[in-house]
């Protein structure tokens, strides 16, 4: 394995360059060549895994609905789980008590599915992030508050709500996309590196 890796790169470099040139000179046509450039600039890191991931997410949402009739919004579990520890009337509402178990099961499934990806396709090391802890915590607090106030997040409104053809969900998506773009732009202006 190591020997192969050492031998291959010198032979690989010219070999990798040739097909690109060949392909560019083939009868691909201006349309495809233009499309290729557009795709590359929109998705500089490739597009297949994004679309594939989205289809898997949709399959999970669909399976939950077909099997149980439930909607797979993921922010609710952070409210329903408070019912285990808080006696406050807000957290003891029937709609939280009735869904708190299966929402934790769904969350367990999320962890298991991601672990399966890590095992099959992921890197040898655990994933990490360069985003500092204060941004992770603060973003979590603000995002958790907002998502529960709005009754949904990227999955609850973005996928489940829009798939239910709910106009408020479409508007919710436009709202959080807008402030998400603005927040990242402001952080960049302020020089806060990700």
């Amino acid at each position: 394995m190591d020997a192969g890796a050492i031998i291959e790169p010198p032979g690989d470099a010219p070999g990798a360059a040739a097909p690109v040139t060949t392909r560019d000179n083939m009868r691909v046509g201006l349309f495809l060549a233009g499309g290729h450039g557009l795709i590359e600039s929109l998705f500089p890191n490739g597009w297949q895994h994004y679309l594939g991931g989205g289809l898997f997410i949709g399959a999970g949402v669909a399976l939950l609905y077909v099997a149980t009739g439930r909607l797979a919004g993921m922010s609710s579990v952070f409210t329903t789980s408070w019912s285990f520890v808080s006696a406050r009337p807000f957290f003891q509402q029937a709609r939280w008590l009735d869904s708190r178990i299966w929402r934790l099961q769904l969350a367990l499934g999320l962890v298991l599915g991601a672990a399966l990806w890590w095992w099959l396709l992921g890197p040898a090391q655990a994933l990490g992030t360069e985003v500092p802890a204060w941004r992770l915590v603060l973003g979590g607090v603000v995002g958790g508050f907002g998502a529960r106030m709005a009754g949904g997040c990227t999955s609850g409104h973005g996928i489940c709500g829009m798939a239910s053809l709910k106009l408020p969900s479409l508007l919710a998506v436009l709202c959080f996309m807008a402030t998400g773009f603005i927040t990242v732009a402001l952080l960049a202006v302020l020089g806060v590196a990700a």
Partner: protein
Amino acid sequence: MRALFVIAAGALFGFGLALSGMVRPEVVLSFLGLRDGGLMLVMGGGLAVALLAYQLFPRGARAPWLGVGFEAHTARMHRDTFIGSAIFGIGWGLSGVCPGPAIAGLGTGNLKMLWVIVGLAAGAGLQGLLAAPPATPRPQPQPQPQEG
């Protein structure tokens, strides 16, 4: 039995979140920073499949396989939906993590996601403390119709 389906559905969801790269905050932040449009495909792909299931399956089947009825989405045309979403977007832009990937990220060994999960739980708890109390449990002098 139903629990197995719920976990399997969650596993598909989590596998997709990991495959799409959404469990990496850097990927989300590069989308929100307009450097990579990939998340449009994640949402588009997820939405397309979910849309088919939500719109077509109830027409053929009166009930889900293991349930009595289909849950209806409760999205309201209410200012809380839009103000809350705007606040959520600020948090999303700060951390690069939304609730699903925060949970799924644990499965990829990224223990820093615990910071986000603690934050999300605190934020959701705070929202519950500040929200209007529910109508029914305690006898109240005035009826409180809100909070659906």
